[in-house]
């Protein structure tokens, strides 16, 4: 992998194999940032101007990993901007990359030393805690429920739903959602640990899908139908 790291800072520089074109590459990349998002790591640009050598020492590798980590975390945070649902594909790929980074950082940590917490910005996070929080956020975003949205729904309404489902409300839900994920998203805010995500274990028995009507299907009807089919 023809990539290199500048020592001592969070900077990444990607080179072609001959190494000469590096600085041009980095400048070019900024110029073509898709969507015009300003890069946060202006320090990357400065660093790679200074350094001119390859560095694959353990410290260099660590810096590279940290840089990738920062880029990945930025991406995870970016997705909450904008009114559109995040791309699940992109999210899963970034998440898997973060998992790999975490694994490699653990492996590359010298066993003699206690693992140091990595500094990410101003706050002090341990990597596991960071990834853990990302996964939790990922869960809510993949289920396409914005956390502000959950908070907006007044608790009074939630209490109302549990004992006595409001048919209009549920109809509004089911008209927007298909299957299990709809109501489960809603219940996420109430108690996700105890309640299974599959609709079978939801405390209510609502019409949670446009495509099924529990209770209206008789198994002996099904047998009858199968006899018709198998008989034909």
């Amino acid at each position, binding site marked *: *992998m*023809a*990539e290199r790291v500048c020592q001592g800072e969070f900077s*990444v520089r*990607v080179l072609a*194999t001959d190494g*000469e*074109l590096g600085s041009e*590459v980095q400048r*070019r*990349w900024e*110029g*073509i*940032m*898709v969507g*015009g998002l300003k890069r946060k790591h202006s320090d990357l640009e400065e660093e790679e101007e200074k350094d001119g050598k390859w560095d694959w020492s353990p410290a260099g590798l660590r810096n590279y990993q940290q840089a*990738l980590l920062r880029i990945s975390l930025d991406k995870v945070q970016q997705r909450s901007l904008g*009114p*559109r*649902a995040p791309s*699940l*594909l*992109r999210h*899963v*790929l970034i*998440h*898997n*990359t973060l998992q790999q*980074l975490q694994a*490699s950082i653990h492996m590359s940590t010298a066993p003699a030393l206690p693992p140091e917490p990595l500094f990410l910005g101003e706050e002090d996070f341990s990597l596991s805690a960071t990834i853990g929080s990302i996964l939790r956020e*990922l869960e809510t975003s*993949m289920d396409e429920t*914005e956390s*502000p*949205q959950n908070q*907006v729904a007044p608790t009074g309404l939630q209490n109302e739903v549990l004992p006595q489902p409001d048919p209009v409300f549920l109809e*509004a839900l089911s*008209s927007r959602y*298909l*299957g299990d*994920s709809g109501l489960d998203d809603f219940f996420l805010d109430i108690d996700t640990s105890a309640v299974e*995500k*599959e609709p*079978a274990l939801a405390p209510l028995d609502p019409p949670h899908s*446009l*495509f*099924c*009507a*529990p209770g*209206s299907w*008789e*198994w002996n009807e*099904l*047998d*009858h*139908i*199968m006899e018709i*089919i*198998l008989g*034909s």
Partner: protein
Amino acid sequence: MPCVTWLGRDRGAAPGPLDEAPCSEGELGVPGLAQCTADIISTVEFNHTGELLATGDKGGRVVIFQREPESKNAPHSQGEYDVYSTFQSHEPEFDYLKSLEIEEKINKIKWLPQQNAAHSLLSTNDKTIKLWKITERDKRPEGYNLKDEEGKLKDLSTVTSLQVPVLKPMDLMVEVSPRRIFANGHTYHINSISVNSDCETYMSADDLRINLWHLAVTDRSFNIVDIKPANMEDLTEVITASEFHPHHCNLFVYSSSKGSLRLCDMRAAALCDRHSKRWGPRGLWPLLLLLQTGRQLSSHASPELRVRLCPPMPTPTSPHKARWDSGQPWCLGVLRPEDHGHPQVFEEPEDPSSRSFFSEIISSVSDVKFSHSGRYMLTRDYLTVKVWDLNMEARPIETYQVHDYLRSKLCSLYENDCIFDKFECAWNGSDSVIMTGAYNNFFRMFDRNSKRDVTLEASRESSKPRAVLKPRRVCVGGKRRRDDVSVDSLDFTKKILHTAWHPAENIIAIAATNNLYIFQDKVNSDMH
């Protein structure tokens, strides 16, 4: 393909909404004005004869081009494509419950095989699929008895005799009307649709599920693939593309973000948990057909029915998808991997020497297409296109490098999100050449027989009348020829994600941001 010389057409870019909108470029060289983005072409598709070419854009519009019949008077002017119809397919929506916008961008268009004088196509955005009917009107009745030519009612006292209205020719009018709207079928974003060879059903795939629809029925669909894990924290893989086999109505394939393909057979037998009955070799297929057509079932059956046919991908916590609880009256059964008919998995083992943090991202399959013969599949991942033989799951039979010079730049491409670009791929009519897009408005073609490849550019210069497309080259340092483009000067905002090849002839449609280019070979001959 070395035998083919590609020409620009007289109208390389279509008029109207597909004209390059004047955008003032910001300092970063990125178009900054909002009105530019609505014209970005998001899908391109020829119909089954190649007479019509449909494009969808980010603004939810569909533009259909029609090939003009060749004129004997101007033999050099081979049938060109002109705008045939334009309509607004999808509008932006707002999901109030989730406080999210639903984009109107057309993700995919698929034509239905033509069965009468009208043409039909399916168009889809992230959530809703629509069936459109396109009809022509070229005659109108004249000579009404009660109305005059302007449509006003006549004074009856002036009517002394009756006449039969006659049909008179008029200027061609193309009418487009929405015939079906298939809504509320998907929680996640739809990435592909595919019409079955039975011409009655089609499937739609989102990130986690695939549904089977009947073209005549909008209020129900059958879920045939579900890879959503019980715990979303365990999600590591999503569906990226899917397609029905061109001839076998029971077979379809779907690709994943981990680079694997699954070929599924819908005829597989299923177990009904409640009664532990095996439904026999014909499986669920006859039941589906009955339900689709079956008024006779309405007295017996609930109108809603949910059927699982294919096992989802094993998750870390449940190697087999949990069986449906028998208390679920609306589920007929689940297919377990040990039942015959579990999907064949096509996956290439990873090369440990080229492993990097980005290995998984670049292995994600962005498009999968069956060959016209039905014998092969074509997949596109970030750096390569691969040809798979349906009879061999272990590895692709051919791999072509699209832009391997980007392999050393993956970190930057990850940072600026280009690594997530989803390129499509296409077969030519005889399955001998494959095509895919790249950056800098380049697109690539690979001849499977001669193993030669070419890089071409879709640009204003190349689309001048009868201008011959010149092969381009990207140099990665070392010797640089005069017209070579250096890797560092590639423009990554100019990406060709969507390409299409005429089903029978050497005519290609290339979507370059908000421009459509149509190229044709020099000699207007059939496939060779």
